[in-house]
């Protein structure tokens, strides 16, 4: 049981890392698309926000993992809603950027 919980912690940490990478990758795709159009000036700040969200998700995910490893004996798997919010809002931001970037060309 204890052993399986340890692996579940690790699987979850890996899922956070994967999600942060996906956020950064799709964000880069959207920004590259924007930079090819007429308005690269808009693309770069949007890219900075999305990249910032990816870094935040990565760090929050890592801190959740660290705390879980540290408190494994105390059975405190408390989620940090902030990480989930940043992930969801980051994805919506990319969707909005994608719509804006898709329409003009």
């Amino acid at each position, binding site marked *: 049981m204890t052993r*399986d*919980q340890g692996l*579940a*912690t690790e*699987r*979850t940490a890996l*899922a*956070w890392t*994967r*999600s942060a990478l*996906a*956020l950064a*990758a*799709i964000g880069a*795709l*959207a920004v590259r*698309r924007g930079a090819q159009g007429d308005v690269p000036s808009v693309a770069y700040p949007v890219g900075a926000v999305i990249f910032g969200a990816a870094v935040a998700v990565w760090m929050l995910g890592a801190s959740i993992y660290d705390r*879980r490893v540290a408190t494994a004996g105390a*059975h*405190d*798997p*408390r*989620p940090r*809603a902030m990480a*989930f*919010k940043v*992930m*969801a809002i980051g*994805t*919506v931001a*990319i*969707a*909005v950027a*994608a*719509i804006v*970037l*898709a*329409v003009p*060309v």
Partner: protein
Amino acid sequence: MATEGEGRPSIAEVEQQLREHKATPLVECGEAPDPRFTFANERTFLAWSRTALALIAAGLAAAQLLHFGFGGVRLIIALPLIALGGVAAVTSYRQWESNERRLRLRLPLSYSPVGKLVAVGISVIGVAAGILVIVDLIAK
């Protein structure tokens, strides 16, 4: 998650409990669940988030790579895909929070509406894409 000897709570009881704890911050709700369940809930949210990102990427690719006779037509494929990704991201967050609350209150979990949403959305977009390809071929 019915406790021993009590049987399953009725739907009305579940809804009553959820209403009572609607405004309570998550960590003050009920008690910490089995870590494996809360981790599984967390990974489900993350998997849906990545699915949402994949839908958005597909929409961007459609906007960039499709070339139908009339320029704007590709947006019929691209925009619904991107919108579906955005909706999936929001819905999966709500679903995560709802199920985390239910886990902490020892209530039965709710089924996710995201699966049906994405399945229906992709089906409709797929049919539309098929029709557009055929119409485009005939027009040429």
